[in-house]
């Protein structure tokens, strides 16, 4: 399959969005579903074919497609170009594959929604945008995809826009992302100024052979920091994570696709894409990326423990797992990070879809305190959730175990961070078990007769169960570690790790301990008090309050201050003052016009005398 197919991977979902957007009303639900799902499926199949091609011809040029010259002014020339290399292929497969499953799921989930075609328009648009992001051949094209997925996120979080909470959540997501994006843009400018190019291959070449003398260059460090700041926004790391829990206002399949499997991983992808840059940027990776990742992982996991909204538990869980990925990147485990990205996509999407099944069955009920007893009435969902939770906790032989293990192994060298990761593992298992117990076990707390979801929702669920269960074997050394073999050329030679049995046993033990602790603490629907710690956790260690006090409220106050005091009374007054001065001068001069003839005559005389004197004395 030649390079010509690459743009079609993007074009298919985009076309789907256009068709559904313009003619969705006339196509009817069936038509819309077919267009939407088939376009993503088509993109997936193309991705598979292109990937096979890529693997089959090792050493061949990665396929790059230059579509047209997009921006060109003077020496600054940026083409609209896409590239199909290993990293791009991996993400494309994940996005289109999981995306397809979620599209099918949505057919069932959104069946009753009046805005059916609008939903699928946005969803297709998202897939297309995400593909632009991962297939972009230069930083600017990537950035286009980056912001477009932000747009789709905004549209989808606020899909039920008549709900004020949803509209507000969408706006919050976009604005917080924008903060990261501003840093991202500056990072682009900085990188470009330093390297003279934004093209990834060019960058790799320039920085490849010993960094070209730029290792540790302050401008490079600045660029890396700025770009990472951008990544923290999109991937919901400290301190720009605050939009993600609120994003749960959107439909659950959206949460599964965008806020678990794909969009939020864009930051991880970015670091991976710019690996040569980050590697050459000295202390950034180990001293910034890794600690931020680790801290976020632990932070979010602890907050997840006290959430009652099941989706919020999963949201914080996502933040936490993304932290793991950044930690992995920070300690040099690029492949581990992307392995975890893949497995996480599987089991987190699974968890969200299971949660969606519950919501669907119980008419939107998602509060853990009102759930329960569903293991009997919704066995498939229960299975899905358990598999997902166990994978999340890192229980072998599920997929999460393999990827998490790799990360822990990679972090082994950095003492403190490794401990944090291990501790987070415990907490993760704890809250996952808690969620499973409260949601599915015990006696039902809500009325109603829940049942497993219809086929449209059930099949994707089952598919993800399988992937979450066996996906990890892609990294198994005794199977040839196909995943790592695939990704290796992207980093230039990192071996699949060979953790020793002691490490593995410790990790498993910690995870199991977490599961047991969770079971014991919540068995019988108990909720341990946790004392003052609970309050701190419920307030997310004060982060939201800090934002409110330090950013939101002062910002609004400043805006009003500028508007009223400065603009209205200050600047405008200055202009009016000028006008008033003129009027006052006028009224003063006015008093000279007395209308009195004799005074005028006297004036004439005085003037004449002055002129005469001047003339005579000159």
């Amino acid at each position, binding site marked *: 399959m030649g390079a010509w197919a690459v743009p079609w991977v993007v074009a298919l979902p985009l076309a789907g969005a256009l068709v559904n957007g313009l003619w969705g009303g006339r196509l009817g639900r069936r038509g819309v579903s077919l267009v939407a799902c088939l376009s993503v499926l088509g993109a997936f199949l193309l991705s598979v074919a292109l990937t096979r091609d890529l693997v089959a011809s090792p050493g061949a040029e990665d396929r790059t497609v230059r579509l047209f010259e997009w921006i060109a002014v003077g020496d600054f020339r940026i083409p609209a170009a896409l590239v199909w290399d290993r990293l791009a292929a991996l993400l494309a497969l994940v996005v289109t594959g999981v995306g397809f499953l979620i599209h099918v799921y949505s057919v069932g989930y959104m069946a009753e929604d009046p805005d059916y075609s609008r939903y699928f328009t946005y969803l297709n648009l998202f897939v297309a945008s995400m593909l632009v992001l991962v297939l972009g051949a230069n930083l600017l094209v990537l950035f286009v995809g980056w912001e477009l997925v932000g747009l789709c996120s905004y549209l989808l979080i606020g899909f039920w826009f008549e709900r004020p909470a949803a509209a507000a959540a969408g706006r919050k997501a976009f604005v917080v992302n*924008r903060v990261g994006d501003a840093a991202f843009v500056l990072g682009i400018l900085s990188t470009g100024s330093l390297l003279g190019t934004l093209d990834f291959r060019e960058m790799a070449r320039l920085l490849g052979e010993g960094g070209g003398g730029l290792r540790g260059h302050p401008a490079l460090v600045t660029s890396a920091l700025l770009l990472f700041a951008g990544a923290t926004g999109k991937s919901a790391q400290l301190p720009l994570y605050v939009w993600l829990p609120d994003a749960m206002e959107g439909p659950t399949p959206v949460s599964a696709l965008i806020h678990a499997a794909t969009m939020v991983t864009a930051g991880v992808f970015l670091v991976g894409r710019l690996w040569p840059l980050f590697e050459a940027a000295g202390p950034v990776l180990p001293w910034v990326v890794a600690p931020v990742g680790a801290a976020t992982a632990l932070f979010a996991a602890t907050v997840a423990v006290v959430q009652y909204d099941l989706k919020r538990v999963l949201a914080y869980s996502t933040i936490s797992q993304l932290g793991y990925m950044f930690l992995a990147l920070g300690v040099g485990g690029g492949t581990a990070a992307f392995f975890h990205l893949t497995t996480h996509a599987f089991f987190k999407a699974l968890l969200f879809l299971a949660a969606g099944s519950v919501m669907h069955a119980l008419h939107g009920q998602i509060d853990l305190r009102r759930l329960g007893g569903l293991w009997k009435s919704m066995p498939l969902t229960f299975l899905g959730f358990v598999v997902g939770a166990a994978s999340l906790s890192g229980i072998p032989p599920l997929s999460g175990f393999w990827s998490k293990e790799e990360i822990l192994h990679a972090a082994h060298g950095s003492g403190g961070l490794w401990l944090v990761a291990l501790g987070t593992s415990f907490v993760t298992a704890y809250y996952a078990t808690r969620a499973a117990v409260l949601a599915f076990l015990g006696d039902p707390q809500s009325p109603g007769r829940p049942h497993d979801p219809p086929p449209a929702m059930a099949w994707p669920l089952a598919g993800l169960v399988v992937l979450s269960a066996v996906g990890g074997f892609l990294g198994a050394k005794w199977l040839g570690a196909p995943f790592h073999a695939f990704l290796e050329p992207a980093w230039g030679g990192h071996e699949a790790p060979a953790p020793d049995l002691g490490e593995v046993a410790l990790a498993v033990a910690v995870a199991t301990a977490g599961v047991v602790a969770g079971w014991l603490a919540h068995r019988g629907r108990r909720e341990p008090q946790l004392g003052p710690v609970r309050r701190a956790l419920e307030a997310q260690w004060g982060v939201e309050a800090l934002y409110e006090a330090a950013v939101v409220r002062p910002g609004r106050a400043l805006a009003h201050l500028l508007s009223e005091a400065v603009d209205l009374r200050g600047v405008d007054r200055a202009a009016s003052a000028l006008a008033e001065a003129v009027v006052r001068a006028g009224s003063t001069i006015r008093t000279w016009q007395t209308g009195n003839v004799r005074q005028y005559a006297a004036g004439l005389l005085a003037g004449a005398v002055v002129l005469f004197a001047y003339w005579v004395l000159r």
Partner: protein
Amino acid sequence: MRPPSWILSFLVFAPAVGAALVALAPRRDSLLRGIALAASLVSLGVAAYLFWNFPPGEPGFWITESAGWVPALGIGYRLGVDGISLPLVALTALLFPVALVGTWEAVRSRVKEYLVLLLLLETAVLGTFLALDLVLFYVFWEAVLVPMYFLIGLWGSERRAYAALKFFLFTMAGSVLMLLAIAGLYLATGTFDFQALTAGQIPAALQGWLFAAFALAFAIKVPLFPLHTWLPDAHTEAPTAGSVILAGLLLKMGTYGLVRFGLGLFPEAARAASPWFLTLAVVGILYGAAVAYAQRDVKRLVAYSSVSHLGFVVLGTFALTPQGLAGALLQMVNHGISTGALFLMVGVLYERAHTRALDAFGGVARVMPTFAALSLFVVFSSAALPGTNGFVGEFLVLLGAFRRGPLWAALAAGGVVLSAVYLLWMVQRVYFGAPTPQVRAFPPLRGYEALSLAVLVAAILWIGLYPRPWLARSEAAVQALVQRVAQQAQTPSPWAGGRP
């Protein structure tokens, strides 16, 4: 294939001829509107023709037209179009018919006078962008004020008299100084001919105060902080078409003047003054956005957004780099399109609700979905979302500013965040949420309203995805101008773009 030079006069005066026809025609509103639209479409056709055939790579004036006017005083009737004025001419020719169509039935009283004034305004604006003689430029510049004053004063909202007068006086104050400077320039060089002036060298000692006088007049028009306070009142009180033209075009006269005359005639002075302008530009970007957020009147919110957006234009202009100037020029066009569209949107809302208070709306997206969809395109264009025109322009400006000094770009990037804040706040308040009973009663989007918005949205997407035609045509002129002003040997640039 160079068109004949009289095509420029034809372009400029076609709307005036239309105005004459409207004045003579019988008082039937639909007929009058038809004539007006036809006249403006004629100009659009000519402008499109010129745009299409303009040779990219032409650094100077492609077509010039010259005739004697007052030879005794050295005043000539000189018009010309180059890579810098071409995009603005195209924008003008596009916005007038769009504004006419978009507000087709909005004005129902004294329609004849209204249309005559609009058409005369178009002639004056076109003349301003094409004039190559300083006196001619001044005549057209002042000629813009009169119709605009009446448009605001007669067909505006509650505080129209105040707003119209304020607009007039502010602009006039600057213009008077500019007239003095023009006279001074003539006394120093003996000519009003722009091309002759740029060919020669204006003594550096003189440049300082001449530049200041010109720049003041233009800065008021842009508007540059802190000379901006006429803008919110004028924009808010003007009728919809007036606001569209005011924001879309009149403000560009200021930025155009800064480029054409500020940089073009007084390069040394402009270079020396650039840090001041850069500072004021950044202040404008951030200040305008912050104040926009605090507004309770949706039209005023959009008005302040103009202050913020034009800060970017000034930033790009005075960065004195090719990308900065090219970005600024493109942003002039972009802002005209997206803010013009924003005002059309506000007009649609005002037509139905007869109020501009943000609090009065809610849930419009449920009641008017097509309108909401079009509106979102426009809003995100204003917020510089990649894929829209706003991104290309803003990115180039930021790039240009960065190459001048990273700090400028860093500060201006704050505007990127703030624009999302106030724009999405507006969207949330007006379009989202549950529809109020009043909103539920809104009549659906009318054909002409949809058409005008759709045309602008199409332009937004076209320029955003394929800006090449626009950038290519202005590139040579931009490069030539920047080289003249920056005048240092271009430091070997590391930029190589993306070559696969």
